């Protein structure tokens, strides 16, 4: 159960596939246009339920409750790219005599 006034994320379909504009590639045409939005939960609810939130600008918006206290989960990548290291080593070696 997520308590009211908790910072949450909701998801909402803005346009169903049949409501989307023409001129879209088929892979986009067949999926809905979705929105994610964060705000404060107005009434206690469970994840997956239809809820109403109050956004930072004071708007009231409804949608499906998806996350509680949503965080940022990207970073510097899941694996290190050693090739990048090589670039600096090579270029510094090329300029070695400049700094001699």
């Amino acid at each position, binding site marked *: 159960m997520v308590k009211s006034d908790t910072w949450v994320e909701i998801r909402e379909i803005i346009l169903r596939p049949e409501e989307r504009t023409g001129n879209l590639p088929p892979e986009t045409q067949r999926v809905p246009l979705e929105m994610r939005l964060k705000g404060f939960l107005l009434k206690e609810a469970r994840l997956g339920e239809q809820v109403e939130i109050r956004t930072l600008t004071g708007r009231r918006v409804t949608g499906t409750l998806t996350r509680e206290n949503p965080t940022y989960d990207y970073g510097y*990548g*899941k694996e290190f790219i050693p090739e990048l290291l090589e670039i600096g080593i090579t270029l510094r070696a090329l300029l070695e005599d400049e700094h001699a």
Partner: protein
Amino acid sequence: MHKDMSYGAVMGRKNEIMKKALGMDYARYEETPLAFDYEAMMKDVGITLEEAVVIQREAAVGNTPLIEAKNLTALARKLSPEGYGAQILIKDEAANPSGSFKDRRASLAVHMAKKLGYKGVVTATSGNYGAAVASQAARYGLQCIVVQECYDSRGEGQPEILEKQRKCEALGAEVIQLTVGPELFYTFLKILEETEYFNASLYSAYGIRGVETLGLEIAEEVRRRYGKDPDVVLATHAGGGNLTGTARGLQAAGAWNTKVVGVSVDLSGLHMASDVDFNKKSFTTGHTGFGIPFAAYPDRSDVPRSAARALRYMDEYYLVKQGEVFYMTEALAQLEGMERGPAGNTSLTAAFALARTLKSTDILVVQETEYTGAGKHPLAQLAFARDHGITVGFGNPEEEIPGKSIILPASPELIGLRPQDLESLRRSLIKNLVTQRQVTQVTARDLEFLQEETRGSEEFVVKTLEELGIPVCAEDAKRG
């Protein structure tokens, strides 16, 4: 009574919504069904270039350092014939409050919103502009909503975009995150209508006046330090505002002989509205997916007439490859001690290759950098690409295929310049203007307008119109 909020109904109210949200009536600049008075629109901004400088100083924007890239210049000279290898200067726009030159655009737009009495600002962008508007809105005490294309239909987002979203939120903005699709504009209009906030468009005249200070600063600083105008200024080109504003600023400073060069990352073959291609690109701005369509038709933007009109100002246009930009991003960090970018280093990449073709007495200015960090870093981008089946490795960048491979140049000499045919872009612009404005014949004023738009001769414009089967109205042409 409830308003009809369906796609068709909202799009149908576009002009009415825009008029309210822009505080500017674009109809007054329309001269014929085709032509409009661009300079009158720029004049009506009501903020002179000198005033823009003052507004920006008060908002902690601009006056950024112009840095001599001594080691990159030395490297370019080492790889060039005797007497070649231009001096490379870098305008460190990452020093602006939100970390990019976009603060210049946002500062005037938000200043106007405040002055006109709006309670908040809305912007539709997946770029650094969202953060810039959020930053300025915070300073002016206005609300801010950013509408952003963030995810594919599976809810996966490119790390660069996710970082930009975090940054907007960090600066107090409400971010409406959408999946892929051009209907973002529909959501944007709905929000403008609901909130009655100001449309802080990237393409308004305010936004462009804001960038003019960048060109002005470059001209003045280069003159003061080197006793001459810069020979070349390179600008990353997407929607056209960066290049347009910079070029106008250079001209306002009287630097008429400075060549203005646009640069985009080559993403050819990737569809910008594709749910599948969305996460196959490592650059979310500064690429051909914006650069080419916006040069060939600027009015596809979120204002009736875009103030960003790149073909009026672009002397040359080059493409660089994704792998080359990552390579130069690393070079900038490792040789100059400046961790910036990556997207902001697009023009730096072309600058390095171009410097090798110019005399060592020439001065070449890269007019921006942008902040970097988690998400917006080559490590994040390349790991994400690899995870999505894109090969990453050293080789010849000419062989890079967007969406399939990212090729880091095996040696810095392989960083290439791929000149784009400006004449064909100019022809496309004429074609798009007459098609979109549904014009079946043109007047003398239209001819003049198309010459301004393309910097083409009368013969070129007439010949292009002939090929399109559009007659020039003889009577009117004579009068003109």
